[in-house]
């Protein structure tokens, strides 16, 4: 009986991580959907996580307030960062945001108040499976209402052709900044949730590879709609669990195998399924239609 309980606990843990990763994937999608490749979200996640951790460890605030703070803290940073940086063209924006992420990480490594590289530990587990998924559902709801709205179309038009969008009266700077801040808030709240689920925060968890993971979730899932990134997150987070068993039976170390398969899937998606996993059903439907036409 206890093994069953253990099994459930294990899966519960993975499913919780899927929820957090889905939020992170959505945070990257927030800027991708208007055509901006921003890689700052590991930095925003760190800010949210640390803010939440500090509040929990030093104050008696209820968890809801702590989570709200974990969304607002990075949003506050996102505004002064976004204004100059969103003016930069594509690749420069990506690099500037990578730089921001690194600056945040380095600042945390050197901050004695939070034990530098060791980070903070013994954070009580205030985030449950349901808290994580409640936040995820709210985020998905917001995105679903955005799609098909006047602002939603404006964002799509910016992605397609920013110049033309501007001459249609769309204040593209404001729109991009808003999504940048929204993404920051999502990443922050995901950080806050994770901190209260894994009991600790440390700078090493918010490096460049973290934001690359987020980007991978979004791309593998598909960035045409808001449903893609969570699907990608689920796929990429569950896959290593599935593979762990396989790998051990073949005698390969789990670390390299998981990494190899991640890379292979990512490459396969980019080359053969550029619209992500979520476009698979469409692909099957198209193939079936073609076959029916004979």
């Amino acid at each position, binding site marked *: 009986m206890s093994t069953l309980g253990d099994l459930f606990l294990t899966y519960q843990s993975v499913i919780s991580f899927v929820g957090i990763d889905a939020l992170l994937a959505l945070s990257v999608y927030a800027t991708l959907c208007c055509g901006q490749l921003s890689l700052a979200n590991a930095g925003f996640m760190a800010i949210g996580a640390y803010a939440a951790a500090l509040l929990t460890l030093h104050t008696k605030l209820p968890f809801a307030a702590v989570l709200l703070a974990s969304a607002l803290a990075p949003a506050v940073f996102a505004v002064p960062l976004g204004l100059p940086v969103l003016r930069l063209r594509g690749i420069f924006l990506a690099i500037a945001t990578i730089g921001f992420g690194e600056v945040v990480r380095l600042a945390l490594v050197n901050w004695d108040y939070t034990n530098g590289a060791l980070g903070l530990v013994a954070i009580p587990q205030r985030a449950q499976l349901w808290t994580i998924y409640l936040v995820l559902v709210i985020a998905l709801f917001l995105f679903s209402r955005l799609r098909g709205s006047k602002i939603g179309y404006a964002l799509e038009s910016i992605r397609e052709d920013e110049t033309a969008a501007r001459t249609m009266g769309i204040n593209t700077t404001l729109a991009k900044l808003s999504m940048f801040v929204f993404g920051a808030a999502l990443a922050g709240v995901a950080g806050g949730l994770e901190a209260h689920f894994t009991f600790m925060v440390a700078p090493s968890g918010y490096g*460049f590879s973290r934001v690359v993971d987020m980007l991978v979730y979004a791309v593998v899932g598909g960035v045409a709609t808001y449903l893609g990134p969570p699907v990608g997150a689920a796929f990429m987070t569950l896959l290593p669990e599935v593979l762990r068993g396989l790998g051990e039976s073949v005698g390969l170390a789990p670390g390299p195998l998981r990494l190899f398969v991640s890379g292979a899937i990512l490459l396969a998606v980019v080359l053969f399924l550029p619209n992500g996993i979520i476009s698979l059903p469409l692909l099957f439907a198209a193939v079936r239609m073609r076959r029916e036409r004979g």
Partner: protein
Amino acid sequence: MGQQAINGIFLGRIYALFAVGYTLVFGVLDIINLAHQAIFMLGAFCALVLVGELHLSIAVAFPIAVLFSGALGILLDRIAFRPLRGRAYSNMSGLISSIAVATLFEAIALQFFGPDTSRFPFGTFPERPLRLGGAVVSTLQLCIVAISVVLMVVLTYLLRRTRLGRQIRAVAESPRAARILGIDVDRVIAASFFISSALGGAAGVLFALAFNSLSPDIGRSVELKGLAVIILGGMGSVPGAVIAGFAIGLIEVFTVAKLGSSYRDAVSFAVLFLVLLIRPRGLLGRVALREA
């Protein structure tokens, strides 16, 4: 003071060598190749294997590792970039594609070499400190500087004086126009990847020798530093990358001397931000956006 300058120059050389590869590919494809750092790392491991397992001398292992890295570059182009040519959003796909291959390379390195630090066998490079002015310089450092200078000179000659170099510059200017002129754009791009990755691998071997430590993640720290270098130097500009490599190497060393080592990495990013905010095209980068 002079000692710091020497250390800065020497570090800068390695950054410059790494960055030149980055910028070459960017100039030709308008893509940041995030697998460059993985080839940097694999080049170093190749040299390690040749010296450690096959007991070749470093003088023989080095060119082989460089060629091996170049070959990896061609492979990278074939599987990650070439299939995407002509697609919409190819810049972002290319970026992610390169991340994928970088992950694959790192996984392979992890499988064969493990996550821990490896070292070159003792005696790989004869250490003999020399006095130069008031500073101490090791023969290794001199060698690194000499090799990188030679490689830069060769690269400059290649780009300015050979037909291939002219073709590379033509493609960097406008692939469409180059195609109309009859240039085999795919072949030129493959050649650019070969050169870029060879230089990256060379930088990797030199880096590993200089610090005598190698692990599958050495590419990561240099990768981000390399971005700062090419931004400062100007994307697509080879001389810019060289100058900026030096500048960042020197800035880093002086920062550590004055402010302590915890600021070392931060200062590269400070430079990165300043450049992007004030003068995004860097020192010698092109102003105009590339034509298709």
